């Protein structure tokens, strides 16, 4: 009331306050009618983790990388007799794959490290339970979530080609042909980057070799090279 010496006109702030509330009243509300109306989640929302069991090789990378150790995996080996082969092969069979969502902190490291895309983010988030023990999702329940995995986002036209595409292109061109980095996006490459392709070509095998170490028992594609 008293110490408004530097204020221009008395009561200006009061009128401004009234104007703000009146303007807000005429605008659309921001309330989301959640249980009635599904929220529009941004792409790549992290709701729950889905498991594509066929892709899992029981490499245990996810369980080992998990910061709070909330992935539990059991498996056994099975003999697979291949007709015509000299000896039978062995295959890992998944017995148990549980994720305890009461521990999970949704860091997504398991999904990042999975070499075979067996784990996926899905935007589903409505799996609250009244009993904390029910938050331990079993293999089947994690498999159920696969139905809700959204299709992957379209490839960035200006981005680097995916490794699969590059490999396929290289294979199609035959041995000794130009590498992926030289051919895949001539249009998008900067003129000054004339030298880098050689370096990129050098990097490619190294990266592939690194991947190969990460996937024991896999890598038919890479081995051909």
């Amino acid at each position: 009331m008293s110490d408004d010496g530097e204020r221009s006109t008395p009561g200006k702030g009061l009128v401004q306050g009234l104007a703000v509330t009146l303007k807000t009243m005429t605008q659309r509300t921001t309330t989301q009618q959640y249980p009635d109306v599904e929220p529009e989640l941004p792409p790549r929302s992290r709701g729950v983790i889905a498991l594509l069991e066929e892709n899992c090789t029981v490499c245990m990378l996810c369980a080992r990388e998990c910061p709070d150790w909330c992935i539990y995996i059991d498996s056994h080996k099975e003999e697979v007799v291949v007709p015509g082969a000299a000896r039978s092969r062995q295959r890992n069979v998944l017995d148990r794959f549980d994720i305890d969502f009461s521990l999970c902190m949704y860091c997504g490291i398991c999904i990042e490290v999975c070499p075979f895309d067996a784990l996926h983010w899905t935007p589903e988030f409505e799996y609250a339970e009244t009993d904390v023990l029910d938050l331990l999702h079993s293999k089947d329940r994690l498999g159920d979530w696969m139905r809700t995995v959204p299709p992957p986002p379209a490839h960035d036209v200006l981005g680097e080609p995916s490794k699969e595409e590059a490999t396929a292109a290289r294979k199609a061109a035959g041995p000794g042909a130009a590498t992926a980095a030289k051919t895949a996006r001539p249009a998008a490459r900067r003129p000054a980057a004339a030298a880098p392709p050689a370096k990129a070509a050098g990097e490619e095998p190294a990266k592939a070799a690194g991947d190969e170490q990460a996937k024991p028992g896999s890598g038919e594609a890479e081995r051909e090279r």
Partner: protein
Amino acid sequence: MPIWLDLIVRVVAVVAAFLVLPLVVGQAEHKVMAHMQGRLGPMYAGAFHGWAQLVADGVKFVQKEDVAPGEADRRVFRLAPIVALFPYLLVLLAIPLGPNGLVAQGLDVGLFFVLAVLGVGVLAVLMSAWASANKYSLLGGLRGAAQLLGYELPLVLAAASVAMAAGTLSLPGIVEAWRPWWLLWQAPAAIVFFVAGLAEIRRPPFDMPIADSELVFGYMTEYTGLRFAFFLLAEYVGIIVIAALTTVLFLGGWHGPFADQLGWLWTLVKIFAVSFVIIWLRVSFPRLREDQLQRLCWLVLVPLALAQLVLTAAVRVLT
């Protein structure tokens, strides 16, 4: 019409208004406040935009246990909500709705009666505060007493100005004498009356007696269930009463196009418009500090009301 039937019709009409209008204002407050804050407000009760929210609230309050603190002065404690609510019911009796005697009880000293009965409110505040045996209640009640006694003065002075201008204390008489240019001439008195009225019904930004962030809930802290609902109802009837008095005294009551047929509608429209402003002020402004409250009353409103009184007297004597 026999006199007893006439009486019953009038009383029933007033009680109906007493029960319905506050609910309308309360629902409007829910919705207006929500939209002013970018929300939707109640949406579920009654299926259509939560129209039955206050009915549901009422049912909830009825179901709750009526608790009185062990140390409380029980009789006074139980009586206080009624004392808070009842004066407003009496005030509604004297408020004219339309021309040609459309008023429950036209009193020659209507203005005097209304202001006197409104003053009873402070008693309810003190009763509930003292009987609750709770320090927060007591603090809130004393704040309320200081506020209500202080703001009674500008309220009465502003009302006296318009009564002097009209030359009558009868509320229908004042509306009858009202002319549109009074809007300008009596504007300071109207503002003083409205602000003092806000303080009288302890609405934000003048809700220091309740001040939930400082005093829990002031003199209402210990109340539960139906008695608490009575206090809330008193607050919303208070809005109606202050809006109606502002309308009748300063905004020309039933004056408007087709006043003879639609006078009651004009009165109601004006009452709801003023109620909207009361809600609007609540949403927009933060609570005043206790010393600011008293400063505003004694250093701004009382001098303004006195100046208006001098102006009104001068104009009355000269014309």
